[in-house]
């Protein structure tokens, strides 16, 4: 298993993939975090879907990671794309047969891939967290946000909890990407389907019927990153989102283990 992780990391540290992914993560982190502070007095709101995050909320102990938790969903979509591409490309390049000749245990290949990509996601999350908190700290005085509570023990607790929640959410998004990669066996199809569903189909469905937010997979995983929403509790999101991920992972694993490698 350790050998699989080492081999996968060799692929993931490729400069175009590594810096490309980190660049995308930094772009969304910078953009969304900056918006919260720069648009604080805007009548269009400074939060998700026109909502307003007030100075009082940003001044709480958890204020430093407000921007970071808002970025969680985007980081999740980036993870979905990376996990899906890294999994499906083994089929399109035909490299899966090389992997299975050197490591015949298909479950070890799958779990090793997941661990290595989760580590990759963790690096992305850590960088995004540091950058988001730094941007928040720099922009807070200009937005007249009080930062006194941010680095108290409660503040550090909030930072830790948010990083854990974002990590759970991002890795879960990644697993969804991996499942799509295994099922569709094509990076383009897996990424297109995943992104289309999460960014467009789910939002349309929620716009038509708001209660669907409690049951759609992308909404659950995004809510986990935010530590729960007003009308979608963290516990519910974790349970429903966890079920989606678990069922998807089990079905994809069974298929991967049993399916002939004929390309």
């Amino acid at each position, binding site marked *: 298993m350790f050998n699989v992780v080492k081999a996968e990391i060799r692929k993931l540290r490729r400069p175009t993939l590594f810096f490309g992914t980190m660049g995308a993560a930094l772009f969304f982190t910078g953009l969304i975090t900056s918006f919260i502070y720069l648009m604080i007095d805007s009548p269009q709101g400074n939060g998700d879907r026109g909502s307003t995050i007030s100075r009082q909320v940003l001044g709480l102990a958890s204020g430093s990671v407000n921007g970071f938790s808002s970025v969680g969903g985007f980081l999740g979509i980036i993870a979905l794309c990376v996990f899906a591409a890294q999994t499906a490309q083994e089929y399109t390049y035909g490299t899966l047969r090389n992997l299975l000749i050197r490591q015949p245990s298909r479950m070890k290949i799958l779990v090793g891939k997941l661990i290595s990509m989760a580590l990759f996601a963790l690096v992305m999350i850590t960088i995004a967290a540091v950058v988001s908190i730094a941007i928040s700290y720099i922009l807070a005085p200009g937005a007249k946000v009080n930062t006194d509570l941010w680095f108290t023990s409660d503040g550090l607790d909030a930072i830790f909890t948010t990083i854990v929640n974002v990590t759970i959410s991002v890795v879960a998004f990644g697993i969804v990407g991996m499942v799509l990669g295994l099922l569709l066996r094509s990076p383009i199809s897996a990424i297109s389907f995943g992104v289309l569903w999460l960014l467009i189909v789910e939002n349309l469905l929620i716009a038509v019927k708001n209660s669907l937010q409690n049951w759609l997979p992308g909404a659950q995983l995004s809510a986990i990153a935010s530590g729960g929403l007003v009308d979608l509790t963290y516990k519910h999101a974790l349970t429903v989102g966890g079920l989606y991920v678990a069922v998807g992972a089990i079905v994809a694993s069974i298929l991967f283990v049993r399916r002939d490698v*004929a390309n």
Partner: protein
Amino acid sequence: MTNTAISVSDLSKKYEDRLAVSHINFEVPLGTVCGFVGPNGSGKTTTMRMLLGLITPTTGQGHILGEPIEHPEKYLSRVGAMIEGPAFYPALSGYENLMVLAKLGGFPIERVQQLLDKVGLGDRGKSKFKSYSLGMKQRLGIAAALLPEPKLLMLDEPTNGLDPEGIQEVRALLRDLANEGTTVFVSSHLLSELEIISDYIVMLRKGEIVFAGPIGELMAQQQPTIIAKSLKKSDLKRIVKIAKEAGHHAVIRDDSVHVLADMKWAAVLNEAAFDAGITLAQLAPQLPNLEETFFEMTGDK
């Protein structure tokens, strides 16, 4: 301790209605070069995939280095393989690609550069795989197959895309490996290529075994041809008549008479032609090559 590198019995693979491999049986002794011969679509790659645990047989059993093919984890650490062409990550260099496989298999990383040198890619190891020519890709595939210092090497069409010099190098490499004790199981649809290096031959056609055994045994079964050419074209029919009177099958082809007969009969024909006043411009016994043998056995030509 088994003395066969590969043994398969009643092995089949069915895809929906199509039987890709049909109840095949063969053995490959340890330390030999075995040519796996057959036209495109005859089931060579499917058989190799079954032997490597990539696809599950529909029926039958197989053993690799004494271990059942249901448990590839028991033998794949001693097997090197390149199946259906070289497959690597295009954005990684040749060196990086081999490093991925070396890490995965837990092989010493020093072997990566050694193998790149061995296959003639020592100075192109840092170039991206996508920039390689087809021949270079083949060489990288062979290097990857050699990573585990294999007891059994399975190569599927390893000389595809290689220039004549490259083909010769691969032949020499495979022979050297066999001399060092590695069993080489190599498939190709270029029969002339395998005839040169193989000790054993497994012939496949439409998923069925046509012949499996030592190449010498196969060629010994084939009747040689005596090719006779007369100085005067008009004498060709008379040569045919002489051959037929002696009970041999003879035909005129490309301004020569082709007589199916033992090599010793060439002397008899020479004498008979002389007695009949026919001057022979050419008289040469010829053994059929593997390609001709294959077509004769399968009736494909």
